[in-house]
């Protein structure tokens, strides 16, 4: 391995470019997942059966089939239906829809966890369902969702590694390229392991900060 003077700084640069793609995927995927989580999660507790059925179908489908199959479909099959997305768009779509389905269950769970008593107080105060949801239930449900959302975001970050399937030059993919070009396995993979961990750490730190913010004033209520 010593016979070539490998330009490591250059190859690490390649991996960092991949890290940027991973970061983009994570951020945009999380944003989409968040939207889907609320849409489908609230859809699940809707009083209209059609809305509930739609939300349930979405959730069960995306939780049921593997992310690999979903990526494959979005990237290779959707174009036959006339929808051609860039690799980044396809990655964001598949990851966002997939993680959003898990997030939807979190939203539903948290909304349900804000117990009957709070709902009844809203009825007794004659708030409409929408008002109750917006002013009473969601503000309390949000802090309950955050820890799981944090986990979901980290899951999504890790999920970006599988987008190499659709030729998106994310961090794992770049590590593979570097490996093929240099013949060295340990360095590229050790590098991306550390990078992934740092990103996960950044997510959980940010979430903890957010959690502290949204639970301010609630101290001592939930035991």
């Amino acid at each position, binding site marked *: 391995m010593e016979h070539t003077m490998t330009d490591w700084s250059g190859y690490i640069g390649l991996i960092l470019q991949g890290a940027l793609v991973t970061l983009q995927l994570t951020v945009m995927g999380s944003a989409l997942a968040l939207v889907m989580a609320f849409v489908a999660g609230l859809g699940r507790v809707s009083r209209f059966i059609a809305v509930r059925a739609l939300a349930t179908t979405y959730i069960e489908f995306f939780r049921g089939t593997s992310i690999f199959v979903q990526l494959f479909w979005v990237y290779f099959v959707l174009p036959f239906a006339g929808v051609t997305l860039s690799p980044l768009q396809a990655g964001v779509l598949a990851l966002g829809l997939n993680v959003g389905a898990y997030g939807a269950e979190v939203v539903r769970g948290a909304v349900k966890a804000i117990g009957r008593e709070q709902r009844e107080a809203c009825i007794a105060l004659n708030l409409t369902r929408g008002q109750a949801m917006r002013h009473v239930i969601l503000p309390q449900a949000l802090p309950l969702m955050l820890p799981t959302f944090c986990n979901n975001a980290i899951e999504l970050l890790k999920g970006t590694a599988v987008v190499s399937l659709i*030729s998106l030059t994310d961090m794992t*993919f770049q590590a593979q390229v570097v490996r093929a070009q240099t013949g060295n396995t340990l360095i590229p993979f050790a590098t991306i392991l550390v990078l992934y961990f740092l990103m996960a750490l950044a997510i959980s730190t940010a979430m903890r900060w957010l959690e502290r913010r949204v639970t301010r004033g609630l101290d001592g209520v939930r035991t």
Partner: protein
Amino acid sequence: DDGKLEELKGQGFARVAIANEPPFTAVAADGKVSGAAPDVAREVFKRLGVGDIVASISEYGAMIPGLQAGRHDVITAGLFMKPERCAAVAYSEPILCDAEAFALKKGNPLGLKSYKDIADNPDAKIGAPGGGTEEKLALEAGVPRDRVIVVPDGQSGLKMLQDGRIDVYSLPVLSINDLVSKANDPNIEVVAPVEGAPVYCDGAAFRKGDEALRDAFDVELAKLKESGEFAKIIEPYGFSAAAAMSTTREKLCAAQ
């Protein structure tokens, strides 16, 4: 009609699928893509009036579906011409030719010289890229499925050989040479070419329906070959221009 070519000219680049396999493809430390296949494609497209290529590295298995789904305009990746593939895509005239090779342990302890030898030795395991020519050759020679290990990429294959997980790793000669020279491992030796295995050539693979573009490509490719430019591009990577020029798509696609 030339709609596709006009479209590429309009956007100024062609989307090319390449493999992660030197020397067919090389990626420099600065991220610049070179290697025999992309270099040829770049040159031909330039002559066609398409300023540049945008190369995206792809798994072998994802190339053809990507092409069919319109993800790439062309594949130039050492995807060898074979009758079934000729049915799935529209090939240009041959570009890069290579024979098959084995990488194996020093001294070839199992004495493997052909795919048939592997089939006959119940202990021998062969590694090959999934969906690649080598996998098919091994299966056709009678190696049972559970002794043909699908290996995701060249480095993985070499590593598995070094670790004793497989006994043979089979790739085109130049790919094996590149791998082995990078590994610089005295315990690995190369058998090339593999006995009984034909020489294969790849071509630029276009989507069925883009035959017009393919034909235009062929015209410029022929000029390139004639002028000697072609040899200048691919020979530094170890490929033989003469081999490519001595055969045709028609022959290769008909070969059995």
